[in-house]
């Protein structure tokens, strides 16, 4: 098994707010992340695919294919967007780094045609990232 990782960056806005909480609870629990007009991050996404190399090409998965998949599924959907208002898959979920990583996993996993998705690592800032492994183990 060999793992390959492709990294992309996108910028998006979000706000943490649970409509079941009072305004005061939202502020207490989410702090600055609850400011009414939202804020944003430069997200860095590392997508890792594991598999056997194709003897004919020496590749696990054609990087160009992965690049186009990330462009279509992640960049077109999330880059320079509001995660609260413009990403249908996040409707009804608070757009935490955990939930965004899980949505990216769900979008990508069924569309990897060679090998399999091993890990989605989403950096929200240089101090914070979330790893999603689907239902599998550690890559």
């Amino acid at each position, binding site marked *: 098994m060999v793992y390959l990782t492709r990294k992309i960056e996108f910028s998006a806005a979000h706000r*943490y707010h*649970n409509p*079941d*909480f009072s305004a005061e609870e939202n502020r207490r*629990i*989410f*702090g600055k992340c609850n400011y009414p007009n939202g804020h944003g991050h430069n997200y860095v996404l590392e997508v890792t695919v594991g598999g056997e190399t194709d003897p004919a090409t020496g590749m696990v998965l054609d990087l160009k294919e992965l690049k186009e998949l990330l462009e279509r599924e992640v960049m077109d959907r999330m880059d320079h967007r509001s995660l609260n208002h413009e990403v249908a898959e996040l409707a009804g*979920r*608070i*757009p*935490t*780094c*955990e*939930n965004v*990583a*899980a949505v990216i*996993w769900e979008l990508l996993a069924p569309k990897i045609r060679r090998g399999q998705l091993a890990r989605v690592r989403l950096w929200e800032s*240089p*101090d*914070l*990232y*979330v*790893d*999603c*492994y*689907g*239902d*599998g183990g550690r890559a």
Partner: protein
Amino acid sequence: MRLELTRRYSFAASHRLHSPLLSPAENQRIYGKCNNPYGHGHNYVAEVTLTGPLDPATGMIAHLGDLDRFVAREVLEPLDHRNLNEDLPVFRDRVPTTENLCIEIFERLKKFPGARLVRIRLEETGRNSFEYAGEPGGSQT
């Protein structure tokens, strides 16, 4: 869906690698510059990785404010700008290698009540790092 959250924290500390079980010549041979008598220091980076179910009300594994306060109290305040050999009782009789420091940080943080500690990855410099995930079969692994 298995998710892990990792937060990175920085602190600076001094140490000296010297084992009382070894002769001065052996200490010098094994630890080299790290055995120089007055110690030296590093900018450490600790990566703290947690897992657990997402709280449906917040969409989070752990509340970052709670984690930051816990790490500040248990690790950053006692270690930052300290001398590991002199200021931490655990290193009175244990060499403060980054392996041992990584284990010590794991032991201090495994009591975090908000989520399960998976591992500590500790960078001593930009080129050396160490990871500890508890002992197999331990309550935290």
